[in-house]
């Protein structure tokens, strides 16, 4: 009896100890050694989620390991991103999000428990998601000039729908107002899907929105896309002008899609990802797959991405400070 009790105690002790055992920290040279978890801080089915899921297979093949995509929505991306910020910086938990969370959400939401620029390791930028402005085809506004003319003659009269406040389209509205020296009132809705019926039903005069939510209507000729807010014309829509070419030199907004990780990620991990990401984004299959959703491939290594985001952030702060 005593030996049985002793044996039982020993086994319990052993299993307790086993709980605390950790695998030896893998050196960055043999990264990745196991499953990588990409946290998408948005709901499944959304634009960002679709991008990463499409990419998931290719990245997994090139990284030679399995990649699991986990959705942790909430707070415009803050909820998911904060779990990554608090995770171990070993490269197995990364945040697959977009740039809105990094340099737009902090402008509207106070009390974010981390600094989006300095508490993260920027790994790579993969693509951009061009934003634009759109109106009903029957509307009187057939071009950017129409809108500016009307807006200048009737300040505060135009109402433009946007998918929410902490988003690129909303910032686009602000940038547009500043650059064109007009006063258009943005009306925030709960997402691109909510804005589309408002455009079609004429409840708003036009909207700041990206192409995917309106694509079905655009193809059917019911919605007209007046302009994109990029420096160059969108490769898939060469006949839609850019605000830049119309003279609005500072109205450039492109949601970047990129990978970030917790602070203190080993440089070898970052380099490995930069290498693989660059290779993946060059693959013509990948390019055509993401172009289906109107993304434009744009690879930038981590440090460049961080600089871009920080500069945009400074500009946005100035913009918001004015109004």
């Amino acid at each position: 009896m005593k030996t049985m009790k002793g044996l039982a105690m020993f086994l319990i002790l052993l299993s307790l100890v086993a709980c605390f055992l950790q695998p030896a920290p893998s050196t960055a040279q043999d990264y990745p050694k196991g499953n990588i978890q990409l946290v998408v801080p948005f709901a499944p089915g959304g634009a960002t989620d679709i991008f990463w899921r499409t990419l998931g297979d290719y990245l997994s093949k090139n990284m030679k390991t399995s990649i699991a995509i986990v959705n942790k929505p909430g707070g415009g991306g803050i909820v998911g991103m904060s779990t990554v910020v608090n995770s171990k910086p070993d490269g197995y938990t990364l945040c697959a999000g977009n740039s809105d969370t990094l340099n737009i959400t902090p402008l509207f939401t106070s009390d974010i428990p981390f600094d989006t620029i300095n508490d993260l390791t920027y790994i790579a930028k993969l693509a951009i998601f061009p934003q634009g402005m759109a109106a009903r085809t029957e509307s009187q506004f057939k071009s950017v000039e129409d809108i500016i003319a009307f807006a200048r003659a009737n300040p505060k009269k135009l109402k433009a729908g946007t998918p929410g406040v902490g988003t690129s389209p909303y910032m686009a509205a602000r940038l547009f107002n500043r650059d064109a020296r007009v006063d258009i009132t943005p009306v925030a809705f709960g997402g691109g899907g909510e804005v589309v019926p408002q455009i079609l039903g004429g409840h708003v005069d036009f909207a700041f929105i990206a192409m995917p939510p309106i694509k079905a209507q655009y193809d059917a000729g019911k919605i007209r896309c007046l302009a994109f807010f990029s420096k160059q014309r969108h490769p898939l829509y060469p006949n839609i002008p850019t605000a830049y070419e119309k003279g609005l030199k500072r109205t450039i907004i492109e949601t970047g899609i990129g990978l970030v990780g917790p602070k203190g990620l080993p440089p070898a991990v970052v380099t490995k990802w930069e290498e693989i990401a660059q290779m993946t984004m060059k693959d013509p299959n990948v390019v055509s797959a993401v172009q289906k959703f109107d993304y434009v491939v744009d690879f930038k290594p981590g440090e460049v991405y961080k600089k871009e985001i920080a500069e945009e952030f400074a500009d946005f702060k100035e913009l918001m400070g004015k109004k």
Partner: protein
Amino acid sequence: MDILHDLYFGFSVAAMPINLLYCFIGVLVGTLVGVLPGVGPPAALSLLLPATFHVPPVSAVILLAGIMYGAMYGGSTTSILVNIPGEAASVVTCLDGYQMARKGRAGPALGISAFGSFIAGTGSIFGLIFLAATLANFALRFGPPEYFSLMVLGLSILVYLARGSIVNALIMVCFGLLLGTIGLDQMTGAPRFVYKIITLMDGVGLVQVVIGLFGVSEVFLNVETVLKQEIFETKIKGLLPNLDDWKRSLGPITRGTVIGFFLGVIPGMSVVIPTFVSYTLEKKLSKTPEKFGTGMIEGVAGPESANNAASCGTLVPMLSLGIPTGAATALLLGALMIHGLRPGPLLIKESPEVFWGVVASLYVGNVMLLILNLPLISLWVKVLKVPYYLLFPLILLFCIIGSYVTNNNPYDVVIMTIFGAIGYAMKKLDYEAAPLVLALVLGPMMENALRRSMVLSEGHIGIFFTRPISAFFLIAGLLILFSPFFLRKKRLRAELRGNE
């Protein structure tokens, strides 16, 4: 007729053996996942979305539609058996369905739920086929003022929802409205009542609140009493609805289908609202309204039909306009896009086999679900015979899984537990949870609609009355809200006359 030709084409696509298989898998998996408390169509779709990637497009859509329907059916099972809503839209089913189960009538409740859903689904599919284009265009006329007025109408029906004290119900409504304000404000991004708790940035979470208030609290309550008495009547009175049940349910099913379908078509309308409307309508039309809440089958038949019809209704704007109307359709839309299909005005023209294949498979899915669920009723009913001390840990486990799985966030489980405690207190003090849930759903929608309307009208409140649809709903809502005052006078007069 062209439509019949297209339908036949659709059925030929849906009836292909491989597609039938996908439909069956979708329906089966959807039901099993949907039985998990709190896991309804949106959660089921998001969990199973990755599995559909490597499947050909039309089959993928059929699979997903099957999952959506299956999840809805599965949702009502737990509502009836253990008073835990399988999804937010099944909350109303708990009210009378569970009481029927306690009286040994779980079988008929499950049965009428299955049949009602089937009839509603079939009816809505016809609505989808013939009315899709017209309805979609009508839905476009709903701007923020129309939404606000519709919500006012929705809140006003709460007057009839309350079973007991109306004052208590109104207190719950206020509590629900308050809870609805928690989170990031949609119009300014400012955090409200968040107190630096990141999880609260998106609000308390309807699913977690509902599971807590209904399910967890019920477990707490039962654990108190179970040592002394049986929770359920052990004699099961029949497995299927009898003739009397059918006679009483036909009306509710028909009304539920109509209400659910037409309300579901409105973009952004939560599927929860039509179920409440149906329940209240049945209560109002019944000759014995005070019996609602004790196990009236009308209270199960109507809302379940409305639930199913509304889910079908949400497909109308998605398929004909390419607009997502809620979480489930947004996921479906995303999945379709990944497969290179873009629903919208062009879908019918360019890929008719997708559109008609989906419509036909919805019907096939409905049939499969009915066939699948009926024999399962006897199985489910046996679950009730498991001794409660074994059952309740499992129930709690499923509640926890259900709350966690939506957002992969462990703090959601904390929220569920807190609301479990609150729900326990509420039950002891005779406060109803249903008005709270309705207010929690309606409140944020109403507030945002009001504020957007004010921005659009630049502060003029007349906008609600100058637009015809909005004026209609608003006046109807106010009339319903104040009708007790008019009716009271009539009743008093009738009483006085009766005493003479």
